[in-house]
């Protein structure tokens, strides 16, 4: 929590540590597990989820190109993860008011990454391992160890919103 408190919308950051990948199908499955009171594939407390479905890796690479996918498709599922301790999400595109409210209430930051930098982002991934839902292929949950992964704070803990503020600043 102390790591995300100083962050403000518009800050350029470099993420180092663990990211868990999850997109549409993995979120739908986590939702079913939560509803059935079954354990999730990883403990959400203090973790960061990256909305991506990587391309296959060429030999010698930990992961294939992996840019962010549109986060709004995960909006119906994100609040239940944020309530359970998720502290960060990495994706692209706007979030719903319900997600933003859950983020402010429980403490979670939304980071933007640039989809068209997928090959560069994959270079920041030093280790990658499928930890759950292997049958989902590119949509399986991967545990990534990243170094200096470039991102921008889009939504901070205090209502700051880079998408809204950036558009207002540059509108003519």
């Amino acid at each position, binding site marked *: 929590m102390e790591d995300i408190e100083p962050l403000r919308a*518009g800050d*350029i950051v470099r993420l180092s540590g663990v990211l868990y990948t999850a997109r549409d*199908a993995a979120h739908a499955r986590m939702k079913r597990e939560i509803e059935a009171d079954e354990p999730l594939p990883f403990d959400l407390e203090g973790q960061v989820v990256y909305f*991506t*479905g*990587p*391309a*296959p*890796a*060429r030999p010698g690479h930990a992961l*294939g*190109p*992996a*840019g962010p*996918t*549109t986060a*709004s498709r995960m909006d119906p599922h994100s609040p239940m993860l944020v309530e359970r301790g998720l502290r960060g999400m990495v994706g*692209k*595109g*706007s979030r719903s008011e319900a997600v933003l409210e859950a983020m402010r209430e429980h403490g979670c930051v939304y980071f*933007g990454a*640039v*989809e*068209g*930098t*997928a*090959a*560069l982002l*994959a*270079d920041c991934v030093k280790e990658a391992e499928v930890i759950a839902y292997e049958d989902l*292929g*590119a949509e399986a949950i991967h545990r990534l160890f990243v170094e200096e992964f*470039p991102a*921008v704070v889009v939504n901070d803990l205090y209502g700051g919103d*880079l*998408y809204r*503020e*950036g*558009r*207002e*600043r*540059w*509108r*003519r």
Partner: protein
Amino acid sequence: MREIAANSITEAVRDLCIEANTRLPREHLAALRRALGAEESELGREVIERLLENAEVARERCVAFCQDTGYAVFFVELGSEVRISGGDIGAAIDEGVRRGYDEGYLRKSMVKSPIDRTNTGDNTPAVVYYEPAPGDGLKLTMLVKGAGCDNMSALEMFTPAEGLQAMKRFVVETIERAGPNASPPLTVGVGIGGPFEKAAVLAKKALTRPSGEPNPDPELAGLERELLDEINATGIGPAGYGGTQTALAVHVESFPTHIAAFPVAVNLDCHSHRTASAEL
């Protein structure tokens, strides 16, 4: 009649899948460089610089520019004096997609149906539009269509009385609504005319035009410039972080329509604008 072997179509399609996904078109790269020079936001410039750097890395290593290697969309101009031998053209294209997506380390993103979401495993079927053409040539134009921006596309059936003003407002509103979700800077395909589905196909085909090449009709070319200025006044900017470069190009394609109709389709393409073509 000129004979073209089905397996040569498969080869060409395989190569197009890999080329389009790993090498951004020269005209698109030039448009990105122009946008870098014109962008006023520092963060916006940083985003465009990273896009150009990513394009370089993708080309050098022959890896996908973007992990969403999309729908494999083809526009096929099939000469009337061509006979395909040794197989069916549709099956030949699908086999080329199968091989290209496997051998090129490209993501397989197609599911069996919107309801049965089982992955087809090889990115088939390709989405193919056939256009009869005179002569004995066969031209394949591929568009790699990512879903994030396709999802933000829209179609509206205006009336003749609503006309051009409504069309312009609708194009800009579609981009406002897409905001950061469609991964700007965008290439914007606009199709006007025809019945319902014709406008949508035209909007998609408009995306295959070399980036920024104006419509040969001066009136439509003027409309493209006007729309581009209005879109870039929205402030959405590169990656939606705010800026002056929200779109790189607007391509408008027109077709005759009905006395009662003014259909408008807007198909958005993200900064990963990927197209390539081959002639057999």
